[in-house]
Every structure is written in structure tokens, then in C-alpha cells.
């Protein structure tokens, strides 16, 4: 009972901390963005007044017109003269859309207009999202061995203790991922997209790879973009590989937390290796750390840990 009470206490603590964190974020965003918003609003008001003064248009018809334009623009249909003739729903763009749907990034720069489209998106997402998560986890499981377990083993063989070895390796991995998946793509985007700065590029990479996907920056949506299809496909590939690396990082962090005893302390689910562990370990049961940290013994992902824990072929009928 003590452990159950403790887990409830921890949960309430988490919720409280979460609420406080949200409030803090709200305060900061509000204070940073609001003045800019006010100024922009004043500018637009001035623009409208100027326009109305100069011309014979009355306010009401302008309002109506603007509303219609904005409604169309929400769905990506632009009324401007030099807007691209390319559709937002040709094959490559539709695939891009399907990709944002399935990886849960969800930019929202194009959204389904028709009712059938919306219904189909619902079904498509319900099937596609777990499927993609499965694929990503499977891929990460496979690359975990050469990218994480093998180097850590190497470091340990050179004489480092397990905990510092994991920390060193993690820092290295983080540096490599940041370089290859944030800095380089941001530089490329800032070159390819005329209106993006380098910071905008990094912002875009981060928001996309965390699957937040605000949609204020979306590549390949400029009018008269050259090689648009190729661009979109390469962005899709980048998103997929980048997501995989993020998952890998998350898994490494989880394993590290396991190793350093954080997950048992905070009573969270342990990191599972589905091809090694038979049953899911209960969350609360072992307060004390295991003799051999799971990180070390899972070095060779293909070998079973203890022969007794894996059902051999003979015991299948009895198990």
C-alpha cells in the first residue's frame, strides 16, 4: 500500500509541476509576443483605413471580401496574381500531406476541404499512426546495437566505468545528431527558401522533428519553386530519418535513466527490449538496483540474456 500511495503522490506532484510549467510558459509567451501582436494589429488597421479612404469601397464589402479571401487562404488557396499554378494536391504534395498525417507532425498548411477527405483522414490516421510508430520503433531497435550498444561496449573495454561511458557516448551522439539533423538542414533550408533565416531554419527543424508541427514554416510551399516534387520528397525522407534519430535519442536517455536509477526512483516504466525481456517488469517492485545493470547485459542484442529466461523450443508446449 505504501508504494501505491507513493505512486499517487508522485503523480500529483507531476501534474502540479506540469501545470506550473505551463503557467510559466504562458507568462513568458504572453509578455514576449503581445506587444508585437498589438503593433501588427495597429498596422493592419491603418492599412485598411488608408485603403478605404483612397477608394470608393465601403467597409462592409471589403470585410466580406477579406473574409472570403482569408477562408480560402486557410486552405492554401491563394488569390494573389503571382501565386503558383501548381496545385496543393498533386501527387507529391498529397504524399507530403499523408506523411505529415502519419508521423503526427501535422503542419496544417493544407488541410482536407471535402467531407469525404476529412472522413478518410480520420481512418487513415487511426491506422497509419500506430503503424508508423511501430516501424520507427523497429528501426530504432535495429540501429540501437551498432549506434549505441557497440560504442558503449567499446568504451567500457577501454576501461571506463559503465555510467560515465554512457554519459560520454550520449553527449557524442547528441552532438552528432544536432550537427547532422539541425544545423546542416537549417543551413540548407535558409539557402533554398528565400524568406527563411538560419534561425528560422533551426526553428523549423526543431518544431518538425519534435512532431509539434506548428505550420508557420513549411518548406516547398513557395510559389514557382523549382524541382518542387523532388524537394518535397527529400523533406519527407529527412523527416522520417530525423524522427528515427529522435526516437533513438529518447531510447538512449531512457536506458541511461534506467541505469542511473532514475526510472525506479520516479516509478516510471522501464525501457523495454522486446526481444530480450519476456514479461514487462512491474514498475514498483525492485526498489534496489539490479546487480548487473540492464544496459551492460544487453550489449549483444541478438543473444538472450539468460538461457533460462527464454523459452526454448522444447518448452513451448508446456509454456
Amino acid at each position, binding site marked *: 500500500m505504501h508504494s501505491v500511495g507513493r505512486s499517487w503522490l508522485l503523480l500529483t506532484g*507531476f501534474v502540479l509541476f506540469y501545470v506550473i510549467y505551463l503557467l510559466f510558459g504562458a507568462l513568458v509567451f504572453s509578455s514576449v509576443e503581445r506587444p508585437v501582436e498589438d503593433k501588427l494589429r495597429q498596422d493592419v488597421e491603418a492599412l485598411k483605413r488608408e485603403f478605404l479612404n483612397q477608394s470608393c469601397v465601403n467597409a462592409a464589402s471589403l470585410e466580406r471580401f477579406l473574409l472570403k479571401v482569408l477562408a480560402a487562404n486557410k486552405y492554401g488557396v491563394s488569390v494573389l496574381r503571382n501565386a503558383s499554378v501548381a496545385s496543393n494536391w498533386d501527387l507529391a504534395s498529397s504524399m507530403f500531406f499523408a506523411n505529415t498525417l502519419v508521423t503526427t507532425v501535422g503542419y496544417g498548411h493544407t488541410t*482536407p*476541404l471535402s467531407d469525404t477527405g476529412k472522413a478518410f483522414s480520420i481512418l487513415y490516421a487511426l491506422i497509419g499512426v500506430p503503424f508508423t510508430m511501430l516501424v520507427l520503433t523497429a528501426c530504432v531497435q535495429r540501429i540501437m546495437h551498432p549506434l549505441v550498444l557497440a560504442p558503449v561496449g567499446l568504451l567500457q573495454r577501454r576501461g571506463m566505468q559503465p555510467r560515465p561511458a554512457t554519459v560520454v557516448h550520449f553527449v557524442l551522439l547528441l552532438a552528432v545528431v544536432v550537427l547532422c539533423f539541425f544545423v546542416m538542414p537549417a543551413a540548407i533550408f535558409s539557402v533554398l527558401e528565400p524568406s527563411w533565416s538560419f534561425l528560422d531554419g533551426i526553428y523549423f527543424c526543431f518544431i518538425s522533428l519534435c512532431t509539434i508541427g506548428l505550420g*508557420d514554416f513549411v518548406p516547398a510551399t513557395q510559389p514557382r519553386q523549382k524541382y518542387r516534387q523532388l524537394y518535397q520528397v527529400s523533406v519527407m525522407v529527412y523527416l522520417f530519418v530525423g524522427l528515427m534519430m529522435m526516437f533513438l535519442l529518447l531510447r538512449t536517455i531512457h536506458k541511461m535513466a534506467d541505469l542511473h536509477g532514475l526510472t525506479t526512483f520516479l516509478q516510471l516504466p522501464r525501457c523495454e527490449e522486446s526481444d530480450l525481456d519476456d514479461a514487462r517488469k512491474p514498475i514498483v517492485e525492485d526498489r534496489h538496483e539490479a546487480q548487473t545493470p540492464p544496459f551492460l547485459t544487453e550489449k549483444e542484442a541478438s543473444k538472450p540474456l539468460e538461457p533460462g529466461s527464454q523459452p526454448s523450443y522444447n518448452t513451448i508446449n508446456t509454456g
Partner: protein
Amino acid sequence: MRWKTVSAIFFLVVFYLIIGATVFRALEQPQESSQKLAILAQKLEFLAMHACVNSSELEDLVKQVVSAVRAGVNPSGNASNQTSLWDISSSFFFAGTVITTIGFGNISPHTEGGRIFCIIYALLGIPLFGFLLAGVGDQLGTIFGKGIAKVEKMIVKWKVSQTKIRVISTLIFILFGCLIFVALPVVIFKQIEGWSTLESIYFVVITLTTIGFGDFVAGEKGGSENPEFLNYYKPVVLFWILVGLAYFAAVLSMIGDWFRVISKKTKEEVGEFRAHAAEWTANVSAEFKETRRRLSVDIYDKFQRAASIKRKLSSELGINTALNQEMTPGKRALSCSLCEDREAYPNLTLSLSPITGRLARNGSLYLNGLSPDYADRREVAIIENLK
């Protein structure tokens, strides 16, 4: 999982994407072109109605308005009854959408400082939310597990099999969760936001899977509703998102567990099957080798006997007749003895049928009717072949 499985699933995903792309294109492109035509017609009508406005001025205005809207400012209506998009409750909601990685995008930071802060905020907030989600999902799972255990205890009295109970309880879990976290909010959103049923379901699914397009956002009504209501409404929506996400995550992990169990069972079964098959093949090949060895020894024996008999015969009959290829009585006797032997070893003939066939065809011991002088070499060759 093996590489083959992973790459197979990967290609399946790509195929799934392509299918989705074609379907979306077929569904949406006609709508899009009709929208384009409609808005162009509107523009022309507007220009025609108000002759003093020229096209470029209008374009300018539209461009500015569109970029303002993207920055979150709605220029329609006058300035007085506008609620800011960055008041505390909306910022709170925005922070929530960032941390849960939904990211609607109807509001987004536009200052450089805002963006940098957003990055740092998300870096810390997403893992935090992950922990919270794990904890909430765990509690949900425990509560539900206890309920299901009670139900299972009741059902067990009816003597239903374990798997059926498991399946039934999972179905109950999914149904119950759908009712609370999907059906109820759909009704509420329909009422409050004025969306259609399909749009509400669409919003709920898109939000709870954290896709978050942002074309429909709860609480976007802005100035029309009274603001105090909104102040309570948005945090409640956020709370619903949290619990609903935990529910979805629990369902997904259950599906994942099932898949893992199924794949492990399949792996075991396949492994068992492969082990049996390997055993069987090993046994059969061992038997076959043993048989061949016996055969070769037998044949060698026979040839040795035949050779010795031949030598005896030739020494008796004289050297002249040895070169005669016709069937001598001795040879005929030999072949007869071989025939007798053939009956004694039925298995031998069956497996050696091609060789004996050839032997029988020529009516002589030797293949191609070679002279006895080559017999020794051919014997050796045959034995070599048999080995």
C-alpha cells in the same frame, strides 16, 4: 526484429503513403480547383463593383492581410472587441499544445525571442509531458485493470476460456474509453463550437493523435463568446487532451504488446517448425548417406566378386575368349547371379535403378559394353560416382 521484417514493414509504410497520396489527390483536387475559381470570381466581382480600386492595390492589401492573419491578427471587425491571441489563457493553451507536440499552429510565435524560447521550452517540456503521460497512463491502466479483474472474476464463473476473457476485457476497455474520451467530447464540441458531427470527430481524432492541423481548434471563437467562459473552457480542453492522450497511448501500447506477443509466438512457432524441419532433413540425409555407403560397399563387393570370377573363367577358358564381347555362358551366369542378388536387395535396385537399368540394357555387366580390360577402371569410376 530481423532486417528483412523491418525493411518489409518499411516498404509497406511507403506503399501506404502512396495509397494515401492518390486517394487524397482524387478527393481534394477537384474541391481545391473549385475553391480557386470561386475566389478568383470573387476578386473579379469586387474589382468590377468598385472601379476605383486597381488590381495591384488590392493584391497588396490582400498580401498584408494574409501575412497578418498568419501572425495571428484578425483584421476583420474593428479594434474594440478584439481579444488578444496572447492573453494568459490562450498562451497557456499554446504552451500546452507545444508540450503535447500537437502544435495546432493557429497561434505561433513571431518574434525571434519567442521562437528561441519556444525551442528551449519544448526541449524541456516534452520529456516532462512524457513522464506525466507515462504516469497518468499507468494509473489509468491500473484502475482499468482492477475493474477488468472484477469483471473477469464474474465471467470466469461462466467457464469461458482465458483468451476470450482477455479479448472481451480489452474490447470493454476500448469501448469505455471511446465513450468517455471521444464520444462525449464530440457531443460537447458540437454543442459549443457549432461544428458538424464529422468535423467534431475529425477534430478529436486529429488532436488526440497529436497531429494537430489547426484548421479546427477548440476555443477559437474569440470575441463572440464571453471571455470568462473561454477562460474556463480552454484549460478544461487541455485537461481532456491530457487524459485522452494517455488513453490513446495506453491503447497503442496494448496493441504494441499484442503485436510483440504475437510476433514472439510466431517466432517461436516458426523456430520450432524450422528446428523440426532441420531435424527431419538431417535424419533423412544421414539415412541417405548411410544407404549410399552400404550400396557402394555392396557394389564394390559385387564387382570384386565378378572380377575374380572373370579371372577364374578367363584362366579356365583361355585368353582368346576374354576379348570376345559377346555374352559368354560365364558372363550370362554372372548376370543371372546378379539378378538373383537384385531380388535379394530390392531397396538396392530401387535406388540404384538408373545404374542397374544401364547395366541391364546392354545385357552385360559393363556400361556401354566395354571390354573387360576396362572393367577395373569403370568399377572404380562407378564406385567413385556412388560416393
